[in-house]
């Protein structure tokens, strides 16, 4: 008798735990798509073209540094390059320290403001690398001389509104 009572109490706890877990998972499934735009760390050039940010808004732009697009201005400090996501491109201008991994064909994330001419004035520059790791010899034989990699798949975000 006592054992039966114990068993039914245990079953009740099992059902309650199951319901609680289902509720939590459900809440998560609802919340994550809603976070889509808020939780993105940067926008790709296509995002900026589809949904232009408010004038003067501070945003992050991410993508690959286009091959052959990097040049320095006469002051020797200002860097001008093109960020591409494969579909669209944005011209970026940046003065300051450059991360070691910055190079053509690699990923970057720049923080700054989009100008009226469509150029991006960056205040901060971060490098983004992909998930491939290999010795230099292997990279050389694959023709990836310290670059030419992707920065991982990128996502389209629906809106840039705050």
């Amino acid at each position: 008798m006592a054992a039966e009572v114990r068993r039914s109490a245990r079953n009740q706890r099992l059902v309650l735990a199951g319901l609680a877990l289902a509720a939590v998972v459900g809440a998560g499934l609802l919340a994550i798509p809603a976070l889509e735009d808020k939780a993105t760390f940067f926008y790709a050039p296509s995002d900026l073209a589809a949904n232009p940010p408010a004038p003067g808004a501070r945003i992050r732009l991410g993508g690959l540094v286009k091959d052959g697009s990097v040049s320095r201005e006469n002051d020797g400090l200002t860097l001008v390059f093109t960020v591409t996501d494969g579909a669209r491109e944005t011209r970026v201008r940046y003065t300051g320290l450059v991360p070691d991994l910055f190079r053509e064909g690699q990923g970057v994330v720049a923080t700054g403001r989009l100008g009226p001419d469509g150029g991006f004035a960056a205040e901060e520059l971060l490098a983004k690398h992909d998930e491939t790791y290999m010795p230099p010899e292997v990279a050389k034989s694959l023709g990836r001389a310290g670059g030419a990699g992707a920065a991982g798949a990128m996502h389209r975000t629906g809106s840039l509104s705050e």
Partner: protein
Amino acid sequence: MEPVRSASSWHDLANPHRFRRVAGQALPWLLAAALGFLAAGLGTGLFLAPADYLQGESVRIMYVHVPSAWLALGGYAGLAIAALAARIWRHPLADLAVRAVAPVGAAFAAVCLATGSLWGRPTWGTWWVWDGRLTSMLVLFLLYLGVIALIHAFEDRMRGAKAAGILAILGVVNLPVIKYSVEWWNTLHQPASIRLSGSSIHAEMLQPLLLSATGFALLFAAIVLMRMRALIAEQKRAMRQLRRAALAG
């Protein structure tokens, strides 16, 4: 009806004192294996494995960073399963496991965050950013701290165990968020290198990584067993003191 006493060793382990004895016998082997794998993995990883074509020598942080990330996540899954078992079956060892795992998991999460920060500076150019992966990993560390705090927050230990267990179970939602953060959202952190479809880490680097991860996993298990043994001994002593006080009174 009393259950028939089972002769299976699995059932015997449910008795905390027998568990303590068996764990004590297994511990030296577990520790020796952990140190062996760690020496092999970190030795080859830090000294013999090739540098990365892009990152150079700083890629060696991976041999500590990645195993500690895996174990912080795996440890949390174990913590939540133990908490669930403690809630549903009221198993005495399950509650002990929650208390034993929490600080160890928190330590591995802290190591993951610290080594990640040290790795981010020379590669990305920053110690920290609030992207999806880094933020959800910080949340995991805070969840561990929350569980530890709740365990000790109540005069009545049963209430503490209950509150900590509920937080541990709810926190499971964060595990898929960490795992898929790099796929759901644009992040500075790169996507996973090791997937079911294969690895994008070269074999000469993958091998030490897996050795090191095995070593850290065995170390994790050994520390948890040590803590469980200590907690059982502590309970035993507390019971003895109570009994002595009752007799004296």
